[in-house]
């Protein structure tokens, strides 16, 4: 797989800030993978997402050193066309609203109108995106009258409809119930099957463990850990870095303290189930 987006020697300061929000970030993200971004509040997850989307420094200003390359071309070279390449779901779904559309259908379709998509293709694409995110019954409602969760699904639909190669999702499930959260992650999984790259900042490590290919751990603006998801998420010191390990890993680490040994610490429910089954099987024998 080739590197689709690359950060080289990135250090970034927000305007009027003496402390960097991102420090010495060097990373190449591969196409077709799901990346989970984890870290405590204020660790730099959102800033990193904004950096990859080109909002930093173009919109937030501040001082940036280093460069971000998208398909080996600097982000700044893309201009407005970046919207076609990278989709972005904001932490606050209200930010995703255009403010000029009266219905959810029009709001979702707005991105396609802007990029000059063929009028006949817009409606089927919008319906498909609304079906994926379960908002079809809200199609003719005013976006300003939606609940947080509904708005978050609308925000996701308005990005999915544009079918970008890379999707950056900044805590896209913060206002969703467990069923809708699971649905969002299933969408993410389906995107991976379509060879899309998904970068997802989340606190729900259980889901990251289940769906992501790799994790990036941020601490005070530094990318402190990156790579194998099993190795990183099973680490007992994860909690000291402001990240709650997956429930399966927490339980396994606790059991380990009581003398139960594992070949490897499970991080997903399925892995935990396998381990427990194996333990029970050994016990019986």
């Amino acid at each position, binding site marked *: 797989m080739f590197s689709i987006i690359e950060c080289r020697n990135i250090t970034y300061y927000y305007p009027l800030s003496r402390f960097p929000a991102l420090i010495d970030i060097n990373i190449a993200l591969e196409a077709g993978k799901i990346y989970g971004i984890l870290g405590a509040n204020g660790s730099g997850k959102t800033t990193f997402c904004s950096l990859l*989307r080109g*909002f930093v420094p173009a*919109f937030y200003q501040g001082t940036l050193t280093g460069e971000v390359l998208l398909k080996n071309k600097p982000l700044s070279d893309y*201009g*407005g*066309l*970046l*919207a*076609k390449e990278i*989709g*972005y779901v*904001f932490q*606050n779904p*209200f*930010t*995703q*609203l*255009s*403010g*000029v559309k*009266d*219905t959810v*259908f*029009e709001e979702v*379709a*707005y*991105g*396609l*109108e*802007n*990029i*000059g*998509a*063929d*009028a006949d293709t*817009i*409606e089927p694409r*919008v*319906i498909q995106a609304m079906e994926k995110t379960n908002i079809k019954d809200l*199609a*003719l409602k005013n976006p*300003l009258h939606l609940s947080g969760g509904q708005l978050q699904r609308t925000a996701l639909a*308005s*990005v999915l409809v*544009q079918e970008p190669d890379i999707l950056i999702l900044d805590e896209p499930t913060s206002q969703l119930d467990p069923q809708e959260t699971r649905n969002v992650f299933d969408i993410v999984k389906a995107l991976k099957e379509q060879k899309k790259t998904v970068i997802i900042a989340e606190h729900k490590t259980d889901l990251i463990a289940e769906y992501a290919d790799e994790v990036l751990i941020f601490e005070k603006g530094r990318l402190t850990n990156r790579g194998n998801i099993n190795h990183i998420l099973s680490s007992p010191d994860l909690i000291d870095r402001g990240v709650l390990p997956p429930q399966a890993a927490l339980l396994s680490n606790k059991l380990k303290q009581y003398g139960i040994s594992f070949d490897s610490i499970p991080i997903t429910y399925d892995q935990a189930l396998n381990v427990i089954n194996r333990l029970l099987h050994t016990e019986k024998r």
Partner: protein
Amino acid sequence: METNYTEQIQIYKTNKIAALYPTAKLIIVVLYIFCTLVIGTVRITSLSLPLLLIPEFGIVVFLLIVSEISKNGYNILKDIIKFAAIIFFVQVFLIPGGRLVFRIFFLTLYEEGIRSGISLAFTLLNIAGIFIWFFQTTETKEIIRALEDSGVHYKAAYIMLSTFQMIDVLSQNSKTILNAQRARGIETDGNLLLRIKAFIPVLLPLFLTAITGVEERVLALETKGFLVECPKTHLLNVKRSGHEAYAVMVAALCTIFILAGRVMLCFLS
């Protein structure tokens, strides 16, 4: 059966006047305002009053009726009439000058006051009335779409549309802030003074939210490909009813007739 959403967001009007194309209506509005200003200079009767403004207001009322505007439009007009009445009485009783027309106890009416009262009140009624007609028969997104069709840049069109829509957003934000204040125990209901007192602390957060909202809007537009320089697609189609040429022609003929009449009056006097 699959719902056709694109069809559902279209604006259909059965009334022929209301269904006129927005730019045609805009031309009528401009010509009407021009006529009001011209008619306002015509003085009749021995007191030389701009009385022709009164029957002119009848045209607006007629337009509102034949365009079958909603009850909301009449409510707005009622409020404007109340405001115009206040202006009229303030002008009539407070402006001295010219001949004394009427006196009862301490109330005195001078020629100048009546002239100014009629002029201001009916100019306001005519101009506000024609705008009420325009906005009650035309949705904001229709206006913007029509302007974009007639060559206005999409960025300028967006600014206009979002400014109109901002009223909704601000009113919703003010409700949220008021609710937040209420949750903190601040009295927001009661007499007028209490309501005004409660509303003042809302203003600062309201404006701050509006300012931060602008930044959010920029980001939203960026993610929605607003800055992609290409011909934009529009799902909303604003159709011409086919009567636009006649309507504009009638409005133009009326304007020419009024203007010619005014010029003739100038020569006659």
